[in-house]
């Protein structure tokens, strides 16, 4: 395998400045999952798959920073959507869910991450688990806005039907949901973890695969992709959340 950064998307090298981000709206997506729409003081173009760093500051100067993928497509609007899963005892996610209301001002900087980004002009296979839905949905939205939904195929592993984010937006032919705990009534596939038979039919050859989810999920999914014939150097991985390894 090879990593040739020269041929891969790279954002211009620049200093990332902190900017004010005003909370314009808050929406529920799934149990304990919310989308925050942030109005940016200095809007910047992002690629789907990139993320912003969010910073909270206490009166005494104590700060906490966390990264959140952009859920919205790069559509030129001066705002971004971040979708955050609330972790029990999570310093930042709990605060965002329990305290933040529209009108609050947070600080962010970005976009960050040039590697796990899709430029929108070549076939992509998107494989997500849990909050891995977030950056992959930005890619799906981008493909649709560009009139090229045919370029993406997406497979999402979630526990139950109510764990799918973004309302009906993911109920489209390009998206294959896989339910690990509870499958919808009458579905042919019983609830269970992602297996080769789920992934293999989506591999066409020549695509780049974007895998996002917990480290344990990402490892397992990348191994399935390799088994299904996707070359290692065509697999890009982003992991977040508590780890299993």
């Amino acid at each position: 395998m090879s990593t040739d950064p020269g041929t891969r998307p790279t954002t211009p090298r620049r200093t990332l400045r902190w900017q004010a981000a005003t909370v314009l709206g808050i929406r529920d997506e799934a149990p304990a999952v919310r989308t925050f729409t942030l109005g940016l003081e200095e809007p910047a173009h992002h690629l789907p798959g990139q993320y912003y760093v969010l910073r909270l500051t206490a009166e005494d100067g104590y700060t906490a920073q966390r990264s959140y993928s952009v859920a919205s497509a790069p559509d030129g609007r001066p705002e971004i959507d971040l979708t955050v899963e609330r972790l029990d005892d999570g310093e930042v996610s709990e605060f965002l869910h329990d305290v933040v209301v529209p009108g609050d001002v947070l600080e962010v900087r970005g976009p960050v991450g040039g590697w796990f980004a899709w430029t929108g002009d070549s076939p992509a296979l998107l494989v997500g688990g849990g909050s891995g839905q977030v950056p992959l949905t930005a890619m799906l939205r981008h493909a649709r806005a560009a009139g090229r939904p045919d370029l993406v195929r997406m497979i999402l592993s979630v526990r139950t039907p109510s764990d799918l984010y973004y309302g009906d937006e993911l109920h489209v032919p390009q998206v294959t949901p896989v339910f690990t705990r509870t499958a919808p009534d009458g579905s042919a596939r019983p609830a269970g973890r992602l297996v080769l038979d789920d992934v293999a039919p989506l591999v066409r050859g020549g695509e780049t695969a974007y895998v996002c989810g917990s480290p344990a999920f990402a490892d397992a999914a990348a191994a399935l992709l390799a088994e299904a014939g996707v070359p290692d150097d065509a697999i890009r991985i982003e992991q977040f959340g508590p780890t299993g390894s």
Partner: protein
Amino acid sequence: MPRVTRGFVGRRPRDSRLPPGQYDAGDQWPVLTAERAPHLDTDRWTFRIEGLVEREVEWTWDEIGALPRERWDGDIHCVTTWSKFGMRWSGIPVDDLLEAAGPLPRARFVVAHSHSGYTTNLPLADVTGGRAWLAFDAQGGPLTREHGGPARLLVPHLYFWKSVKWVAGLRVLAEDEPGFWERNGYHDRGDPWREQRFQGD
């Protein structure tokens, strides 16, 4: 100056070994990579020092195995916010390897690169003076493939993206030359105690 966030009190760091923004990964050793781990055959493995040196040197697996190793015990910190305390490592001091090649007086930086093509930049001063190793063992056993085996760089005083997995060599330079993540917005040095995560920190 950061702007105060309404209602945010925050949790204080609990352990003085934790740099700001880090959490204790405990017994876990998270594997965070952007690609699948390569399989490297030690028969064909090499480690090379080139660039601004008196003589470029390349070691094979057997040759490097004959060099004296030392032990380093301590904590490591990943930019993705986990830290791991009290690790046990062993490897060859980078000082010894560089001495064999003889950096020229103009040498001030290195680019460390991997057998998979990953690169990262470091000031020469951060890989000398007993602060960096070519590491083969961690926690009492050979480094696994996921953790960069058969050999990785170990620069424990900087964020761990500088400790190149599957390391292939060092290119010695007069000027700093950003590596893979650094071109994508990450900091050129990466001191965890100063939270040097991104350009401009």
